[in-house]
């Protein structure tokens, strides 16, 4: 399988020492997009660490994902300015609308939901970034609109 070859190639370049765990996980995620159960198991074997230890590390850091990213990854900003202007309400609205939690991807693989900290455009807070486009001054009401537009676009595209 293509994916397991990629992983093997990454592992070959590292010594199985604990200090290499994070770089290995980061590289695999960059190549493959996420860290599946199987990937975590092979990483555990490589480092001679218990799988629960890998799981512990992967869940500790926000940067790691355990599900494939959606075709439209939605990044809700929870930086200070966005947070104060209700960024968490925007995140809740997306979560409700898409029926997924932060870090998850919808069943159809269409949307992923993530939170991040600051895109550097606090003047139009609260903001959301989807496919490198910034959506300014979001409200829970505009969340539905954004999703409908993206669904339409995906059907056409």
């Amino acid at each position, binding site marked *: 399988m293509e994916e397991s070859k990629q992983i093997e190639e990454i592992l070959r370049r590292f010594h199985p020492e604990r200090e290499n765990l994070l770089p290995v996980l980061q590289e695999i995620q960059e190549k493959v997009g996420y860290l599946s159960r199987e990937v975590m198991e092979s990483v555990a074997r490589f480092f001679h660490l*218990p799988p*629960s230890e890998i799981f512990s590390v992967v*869940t500790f850091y926000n940067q790691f994902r355990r599900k494939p990213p959606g075709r439209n990854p939605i990044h809700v900003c929870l930086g200070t300015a966005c947070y104060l202007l209700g960024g968490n309400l925007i995140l809740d609205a997306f979560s409700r609308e898409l029926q997924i939690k932060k870090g998850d991807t919808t069943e159809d693989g269409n949307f992923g939901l993530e939170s991040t900290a600051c895109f550097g455009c606090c003047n139009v807070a609260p903001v959301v970034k989807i496919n490198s486009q910034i959506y300014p001054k979001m409200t829970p009401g505009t969340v539905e609109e954004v999703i409908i537009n993206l669904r339409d676009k995906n059907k056409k595209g």
Partner: protein
Amino acid sequence: MPSLIIDGKEIAAEPGEKILWAALRSGIHIPHLCAMESADLPFGGCRLCLVEVEVGGRREMVTACSEPVREKMKVYAHTEKIERMRRTAFELIMSDHLIDCKNCPKRKDCELIRTASSLKMTLQPKNLRSLVRDLSIDDSHPLFAYDPRKCVKCGKCVLTCQGLGKSLLNFAYRGFEMVVTTFDHLPLASSGCESCLECVKVCPTGALYLKETGGRRDG
């Protein structure tokens, strides 16, 4: 053999021993939940064993479970400041604990009840809201079950499972969302558990319990 002075009383300690164990052996009670004498690196997570030590004429706050004894060191284990810190720590622990002693398999044999009485506190926090998380019981295993709502994240089960060379249990996630769980949340029954039940023995609360003691399903 080094000796140290706790609350004005001189006691003996083993070389390299941590303050907590020297104190307990000499009959000085210091509250503690997560401490394990066998731990190489005590993480001092529960904050209940906080004490003040005198360092160069100044007092410093340390966790007694992780601070090694030094010859003639002066330790203050029951100052007003320390008691206040411990009460806050205990309230934090109890703020996300499902308090349901009536139906709890641990009943009265619970470290939280003992700690509360030694701190002269109630189980229910007075100054903090209760934020019990919506987590479900894993009762897949025939002999024991795990109720994460009663877990205080002391890590004793994690360390014990690790010490036995299995490491099936571990911490996952971070901060308020932290839980003790298996690899990828596998049910306990299919996690590779060999039913040694050591984790149940070390659990200070009703989180890990034997099914025969009758923890009710809905807590």
